[in-house]
């Protein structure tokens, strides 16, 4: 099958997704959680149901700066506030105890100082730069060509950027929050994306060595031959993740969903981003060479 013929279509699709991501990030920004912004998050369980309105109004009356109150999981209440000290943490529990919710138990408490978020971002950026650099070198050495490495890395950034973009859209419409776990999902997507791309590259290398021929023919063959494997492999990962989304706890639901989006993107980008880039790069380089040779 001539996959490379439809390159303009893949380009349009990728540009559309990237543009949508940009739009989402600019329009709705990213719904950052306490891990990044600082602040406090407390989860309580009540033996009787209470309404979120009662919780927020009773806390507001006492002068607490409540950012949001929501019901999560099996009727637990999650409260987000600006920074909280030990005293006000105790006071909040007292106030909630006076509502008709029966026994109140604090099941989770997170308080994050404002300096933690920037540090988390910086460390993650360093980690991404180092691993991207390492992968670039490894792929370039393994396939004896810089363009293999660069195309793989570009596809990898394509996937992670769109994942960040989807988190913005999911955040605006469905209340997904970007936290520590999202960072982990992003990093997983990076490695999965490259993993998948290398399998296709490997086939390209093998066909080139055995049969040779025009590069775009080789690329088409390689994609056709690895397509079933790509899909089957993704299906197994998607099965695992779907189970985690549906059956897993609330604390991992968004995380599993982000991994799911990342898996789909990582699978898509290998044949439809990395390889087209590779082929186009080769063609452009060829043209330059011809023009240059003519001049000489």
């Amino acid at each position, binding site marked *: 099958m001539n996959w490379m013929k439809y390159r303009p279509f893949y380009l349009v699709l990728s540009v559309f997704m990237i543009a949508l991501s940009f739009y989402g990030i600019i329009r709705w920004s990213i719904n950052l959680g306490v891990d990044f912004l600082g602040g406090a998050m407390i989860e309580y369980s009540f033996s009787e149901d209470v309404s979120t309105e009662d919780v927020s109004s009773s806390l507001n009356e006492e002068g607490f700066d409540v950012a949001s109150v929501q019901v999560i999981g099996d009727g637990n209440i999650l409260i987000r506030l600006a920074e909280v000290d030990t005293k006000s943490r105790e006071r909040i529990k007292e106030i909630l105890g006076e509502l008709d919710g029966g026994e109140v138990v*604090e099941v989770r408490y997170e308080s994050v100082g404002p300096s933690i978020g920037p540090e988390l971002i910086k460390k993650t950026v360093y980690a991404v730069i180092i691993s991207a650099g390492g992968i670039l070198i490894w792929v370039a050495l393994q396939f004896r060509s810089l363009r293999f490495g660069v195309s793989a890395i570009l596809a990898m950034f394509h996937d992670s950027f769109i994942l960040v973009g989807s988190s913005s859209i999911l955040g605006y419409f469905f209340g997904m929050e970007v936290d520590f776990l999202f960072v982990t999902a992003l990093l997983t997507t990076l490695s999965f994306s*490259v993993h*998948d791309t290398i399998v296709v590259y490997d*086939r390209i290398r093998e066909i080139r060595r055995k049969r040779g021929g025009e590069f775009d023919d080789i690329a088409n063959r390689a994609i056709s031959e690895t397509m079933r494997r790509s899909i089957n492999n993704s299906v197994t990962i998607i099965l695992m993740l779907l189970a985690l989304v549906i059956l897993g706890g609330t604390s*991992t639901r968004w995380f599993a969903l982000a991994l799911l989006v990342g898996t789909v993107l990582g699978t898509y980008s290998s044949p439809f981003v990395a390889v087209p880039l590779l082929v186009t790069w080769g063609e452009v380089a060829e043209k330059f060479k011809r023009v240059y040779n003519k001049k000489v």
Partner: protein
Amino acid sequence: MYRKTGRRIVVILIITLVSLYISLPNIIPVKINYKDKSIVDTVLKKRFLANDLRLGLDLIGGSYLVFEVNTSDISLEKRADALSSLKDVMEKRVNLFGIAEPNIQISSFEGRDRIIVELPGVRDTKEAIELIGKTAQLTFAEVVEPAEEGEEASLAITDLTGADLIDSEVGFDQVSGKPMVVVRFNDEGKEKFSKLTEKNINKPLPIILDGQVISAPVVQDKIDGGTAQISGDFTLDEAKDLSIQLNAGALPASVELISERTVGATLGRESVEKSVRAGVVGLLFVLVFMAVFYGKLGLVADIGLIIFGLITLSLYKLIPVVLTLPGIAGFLLSVGMAVDSNILIFERFREERRGGVNIIYALETSFDRAWDSIKDANIATLLTAFVLANPLNWNFLHTSGPVRGFAITLALGIGISLFTGIFVSRNLLRYFIREGSDNK
């Protein structure tokens, strides 16, 4: 080549059985009922290799505390010492709580010095925070003779405190060569210490850190020079320990709690139950998918996958790996990669078979050729996992927390999947295919 297969199958069998044994819970209740009568009702206990699976704070509940250390008053070259002294003090305080397996580490990043304290299973975080976050208090005391006979001697706190100390270090006695601790005082401390020693010749002068006497040297003579030597029958480690404690009091760096994560035990247990259930269901789906899609080959891959699961679980117990929610995600991803190795090989096998080659030849070539892809792809993933796990503890990368937990299980999973995907699956297939052709 095929003669070795039998022996390798035995190796695989042994590894599987050993991992199965380690993976089993340490205590197994056994109950057998026959016609409403209980025949066997006993509890099996493991005697060897009874390692427990270690769960992280997000799974068993507990507190993760980040203290920021105010090191601005401490000169750059002394900062590292001050931090390790402080860590030492905190460790002692945590031990007072009797918490099992606390983890305390120093994290310095871009001029910010922090101490991260992990307290699994702690209930009263308020009390723990107050105790751990206290600034170290070092004071010298005098022994007060009892007014009446028969009463015990008491201690009287003096005005000589950690603030009067410059620092302390380990030295060696010039005559005996034994280790000792040298304490240096500042000008004010020099005065106070001189008076104190004059008053207490031939009496002990207890040094108190955080309300505990850490040393009670006997004053030999009045000391004017501002430098004191504490000698005794110290081993080198004891001298170092005392010096660290004195330094902790000499540089009373104040700490501030900047972050806290506390997970209640019930929430943690729910997370474990749900994640395990999701994992089992997901794994079953994958097993069924492989069997449906690849038939007998898929069944062999399924056996390989189960062995993968057993080996992984045993290594988690043996190393031990502290399992967290992101760690479970790392494991799930590595399951995906383990399955991927098999899919790569089987797709290859189908291609070769379509080319009309003999089944044994097709099997061997598909393993050999798929190995290139598997190796290249997995090394790239291992590279990422290595950077994220940060085994060399570089300060500019993640030194704790969820990202690291994820990377460790991912890296381990890839390593094991290379073994099960290639060695286990290949030999099992060789075995079954040979048996199959013998029967024909």
